[in-house]
């Protein structure tokens, strides 16, 4: 697939915002001490991130002025469900922020935030996992990774924020959680990458055309230049570029953040969390880009040459 920048930005930034809201909600529910102003600032930042994500998702549409129609088919479409749950999540975050602002501190709003965040991760991941013939995506690890990567980036963001805004009481909890979740996400993402690297696709040129000759080559795609099919489904990046992006996503997205978090947690060194955030942001953009680029759509079988 050709990774759409709008979707890469939307899924990474919304995932991190969900992770931060869940981190803050859990901290509130288990009673970790933090200043009310810190909680409000965190929620405000998450809200802004979600709005940026929402704007990016609009940028993906050819006809954004009709976007409201996308809520109609929630009975069958995961995309429609996501379109409903995303504003709902923004609403819960805004409501929680507002409640804190006017001085109401209830456990129900953080609880609701956790539930709706989980639902949003599920909807986002199912958009990809439900396409059964895109075999790189149609697997449970897609759901696991969308959730864990969102949680990892959200926890790192929360930890970095607590360093910047001087909330040392929060750091032992979020820092340790960030380290654990990042390591687990590293493992599950590696499992998915390994599985996808050696995947044997069900469809072949023979099944796509019904011409069962073992020696079958395409001589013409039926057009002299490109079409929607050659633009939308091919990333046009070379093997070397793919290899470099894969290395970047592992090193920047998981390995370096893990090392920095370990340093921060064991030495109690605050700046390490800020550094982990700075390193992970480009790493996760690379990761999401690779998620799309690695998926081979069966329609690509019909577009093997330009002639």
């Amino acid at each position, binding site marked *: 697939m050709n990774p759409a920048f709008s979707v890469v930005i939307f899924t990474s930034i919304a995932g991190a915002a969900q992770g931060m809201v869940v981190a803050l909600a859990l901290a509130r529910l288990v009673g970790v001490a933090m200043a009310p102003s810190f909680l409000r600032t965190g929620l405000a930042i998450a809200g802004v991130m979600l709005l940026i994500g929402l704007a990016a998702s609009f940028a993906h549409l050819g006809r954004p002025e009709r976007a409201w129609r996308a809520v109609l088919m929630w009975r069958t479409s995961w995309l429609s469900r996501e379109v409903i749950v995303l504003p709902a999540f923004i609403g819960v975050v805004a409501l929680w922020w507002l409640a804190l602002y006017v001085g109401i501190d209830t456990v129900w709003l953080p609880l609701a935030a956790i539930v709706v965040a989980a639902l949003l991760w599920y909807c986002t991941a199912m958009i990809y996992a439900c396409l059964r013939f895109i075999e790189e995506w149609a697997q449970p690890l897609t759901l696991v990774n969308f959730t864990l990567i969102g949680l990892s980036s959200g926890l790192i963001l929360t930890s970095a924020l607590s360093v910047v805004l001087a909330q040392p009481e929060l750091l032992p909890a979020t820092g340790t959680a960030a380290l654990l979740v990042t390591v687990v996400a590293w493992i599950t993402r590696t499992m998915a990458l390994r599985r996808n690297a050696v995947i044997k696709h069900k469809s072949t040129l023979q099944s796509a055309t019904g011409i069962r000759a073992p020696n079958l080559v395409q001589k*013409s795609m039926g057009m002299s230049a490109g079409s929607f099919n050659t633009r939308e489904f091919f990333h046009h990046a070379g093997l070397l570029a793919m290899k470099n992006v894969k290395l970047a996503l592992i090193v920047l997205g998981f390995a370096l953040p893990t090392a920095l978090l370990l340093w921060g947690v064991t030495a109690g060194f605050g700046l390490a969390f800020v550094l982990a955030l700075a390193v992970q942001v480009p790493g996760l953009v690379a990761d999401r880009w690779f998620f799309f680029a690695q998926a081979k759509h069966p329609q690509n079988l019909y577009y093997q040459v330009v002639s």
Partner: protein
Amino acid sequence: MIQWLKDLMAGVAQPMALVEEGVRPVAISSEGRVSVRADQGETLAKQLALVIDLNVCVGCHACVTSCKQWNTSGSAGPLADEKPYGADPTGTFFNRVQTYEAGAYPVTETIHFPKSCLHCEDPPCVPVCPTGASYKRKEDGIVLVDYDKCIGCKYCAWACPYGARELDEERQVMTKCTLCVDRIYDEKLPKEDRKPACVKACPTGARIFGDVKDPNSEASIAIRERGGYSLMPEWNTSPANQYLPRRVTDVAGGASKVQPTVGGER
């Protein structure tokens, strides 16, 4: 603004009901709206489709140009062309003819392979559409896009394993083969012209149009008697369009036989 609200209310109250201009109604609800949308997994009594005979397709692209001409001028169009005279021209087409070579030199065969929407009986592109713009008609099984409801999210194209859909870059809506729905029911046309433009244009008769649910239609007979097969059967989409495999003819006087290595399940 008022129309926008009316559209919204109508859409929420009746997401399953869609109006299609120029289409003979099958069921009219109490509100007087035409219900043409088939439910997911519904078995339809009628399924219009094309049967493509790979045995006689000569790869002339007449179906491609006639499809483009009809559909860019009709209710589906205009189908955008970008940089038509540039070095890198591109455009929206509902139908393409590809060419494959099977076998090893000198025993090779050139196979021209027309490719358009297969109007699947279980179309994976329909349930994923968030707006309901993509739908399968209850009346005749044609899979269509309502261009006024499409938001151009391209998710349906991702959900089609065949790459049958093309986004119109100018209008930014998804387009696809309509089986010339604005032509096959047009009673102002002579009866012999009420066929898809590609079928009418094919000089070798490689495209057979008909109801594949009617066992006595030309299309059904061709599928039954000449080894019609589906593309990518592994995904269980039940494409309505089927392909007839290559046959080779023996020396004069000998019987025709179906080529065992090239073609479908035979």
